[in-house]
C-alpha cells in the first residue's frame, strides 16, 4: 500500500514540530463572514477532521487552504514559510478531493489516474497499487461515465492516494462509499499518515482513524477561532 508514496519527499524533516500552521484565517462568502481568526497547526502524521453543521464553512476552509479561495485575512504556513509566496510548490504538496469528483467521463478509470498524475507533474508509477487499494481493478478499463456514484468516488479517492502528496485535503470523502470501500479508504488514509503524511478531511461521519484531531466549525467557534 505505501509503495506508491514518495515518503522521502515529506519525511526526514523531523526537527520541525509543525508542518502546517494556520494563523488568523478569515473568509467571507457572498458578503457574509463564514469564519474569522481561525488558527491551528498540524504535525506530520496527523489527521484533522473538520466537523460542523451544514454551511458552517468546512468546504470554504478547505478551498482557502488550497489557495482556491483567497482568504480575507490570515496566513497558511508550511514548515514556517508562507505558502502564498510559492503557490506552485504548495500545490505540488497537496492532493485535492472536492464535492465534485474531478474525473473525465470519457476517459477510463486508469487513464483518469494517469492523466491526473501527469498534470501534477508526477510520474504514473505504481498505478496497480492505487487501483487495488480501492478495489478498482476490475473497473480499470471502464469509462468513468458508466460508473455508479460510489465507483466514481472511489476513483477520485484513488487519484488522491496515487498523487503521493504530503497533505490530503478531502471534502466528505466517505460520501457514496459502501462499507468495504470506506474500509479501504481508512487503510489508505492510515498508511498515508503512518508514512508521515498530513490530512484534513471535512466530514459528517466518523472517519474511524484513531488519534484524529477534530476542529468543529460553527457560529460560536468560528468567530473566536477554533483551536483543534
Amino acid at each position, binding site marked *: 500500500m505505501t509503495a506508491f508514496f514518495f515518503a522521502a519527499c515529506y519525511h526526514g524533516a523531523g526537527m520541525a514540530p509543525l508542518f502546517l500552521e494556520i494563523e488568523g484565517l478569515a473568509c467571507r*462568502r*457572498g*458578503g*457574509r*463572514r463564514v469564519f474569522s481568526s481561525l488558527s491551528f497547526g498540524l504535525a506530520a502524521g496527523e489527521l484533522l477532521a473538520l466537523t460542523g*453543521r451544514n*454551511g458552517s464553512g468546512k468546504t470554504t476552509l478547505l478551498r482557502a487552504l488550497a489557495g482556491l479561495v483567497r482568504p480575507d485575512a490570515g496566513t497558511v504556513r508550511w514548515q514556517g514559510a508562507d505558502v502564498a509566496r510559492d503557490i506552485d510548490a504548495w500545490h505540488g504538496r497537496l492532493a485535492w478531493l472536492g464535492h465534485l469528483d474531478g474525473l473525465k467521463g470519457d476517459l477510463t478509470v486508469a487513464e483518469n489516474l494517469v492523466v491526473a498524475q501527469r498534470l501534477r507533474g508526477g510520474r504514473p508509477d505504481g498505478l496497480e497499487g492505487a487501483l487495488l487499494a480501492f478495489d478498482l481493478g476490475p473497473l480499470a478499463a471502464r469509462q468513468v461515465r458508466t460508473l455508479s456514484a460510489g465507483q466514481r468516488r472511489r476513483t477520485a479517492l484513488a487519484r488522491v492516494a496515487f498523487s503521493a502528496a504530503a497533505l490530503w485535503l478531502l471534502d466528505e470523502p466517505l460520501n457514496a462509499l459502501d462499507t468495504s470501500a470506506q474500509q479501504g479508504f481508512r487503510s489508505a488514509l492510515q498508511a498515508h499518515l503512518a508514512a508521515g503524511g498530513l490530512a484534513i478531511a471535512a466530514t459528517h461521519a466518523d472517519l474511524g482513524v484513531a488519534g484524529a484531531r477534530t476542529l468543529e466549525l460553527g*457560529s460560536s467557534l468560528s468567530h473566536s477561532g477554533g483551536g483543534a
Partner: protein
Amino acid sequence: MADLHFLANPARFRRFSQRVLPGLGFATVLMLCACLYMAFFVAPADYQQGQTVRIMFLHVPSAWLSMMGYALLAGLGASLLVWRHPLAALMARAAAPVGASFAAVCLLTGSLWGRPMWGTYWVWDARLTSMLLLFFLYLGHIALSRAYDEPERGDRAAAILALIGVINLPIIKFSVDWWNTLHQPASVTRLDAPAIHNSILVPLLWMAVSLLFLFVFLVLLRTETEIDRRRLENAAAQEEGAPA
C-alpha cells in the same frame, strides 16, 4: 500616486467626494450653459457645412470623452487586479455606463451629421465601426460586471476585459490614417498646429472642458451611490445572520 492610494479607501473617498461634489456640480451647470450659448449663438456657421457644423461641439468632445472613459476603465481595472483597491471596482461600475453614454452620443450625433454631409446615416468605415466596437466593449463590460452573483467576481472579470479591450483605443484614433475613409482625419489633435479656425476651435475646446466636468461629476456621484449600495447589500447579507 500617493493621492490615489489615499482615495482608495471608500470611506475616505466618500468624505472627499461629498466635499467636492456640490461645487463641481454648480461649476458644471454654469460652464455647460455658457458653452452651449457660445456654440449655438456666438460661433459662426461654417462656410461649407452651414449650421450643421454645430453638431461638432457635441460630437467631438463626446468622442474624446468616451475614449478617455475607456482608458479610465482600464486604469481602474489594473488597480483592482494589481493593488486590489476596493474603490476601483466601484468606480469602474460607476464609470462604464457614463462612458457608454458618451459613446452613444458620439455615434448618434455622428450619424445625424452624416446624413447632410455624406448623404447617409451610416457607412461601415473603419472609424465608425471601431467606435461602434468601443460601444460594444462598454456594453460587454457592463454585462459582465453584472453577470455574477457575487459582485466582486463580476468586478474582476470586467477589469480583465477592460485591460484587453484597451487595444481598441489606438485603432479608433488611427483608423482614419490607416484606412482612407469618409471620416474627417484629425484636425484638432495633431502634432502640428490644429487645422481648424480659432472661431470654432475655441468654443470646441471649452465645450470639451465643460463636458469633462460633467463626466467627472457623474462618475463621482455614481461612485458614491455604488458605495452606499454595496454597504447596504453587505449589511443586509450580514443581517441574514448565521446560516442554519
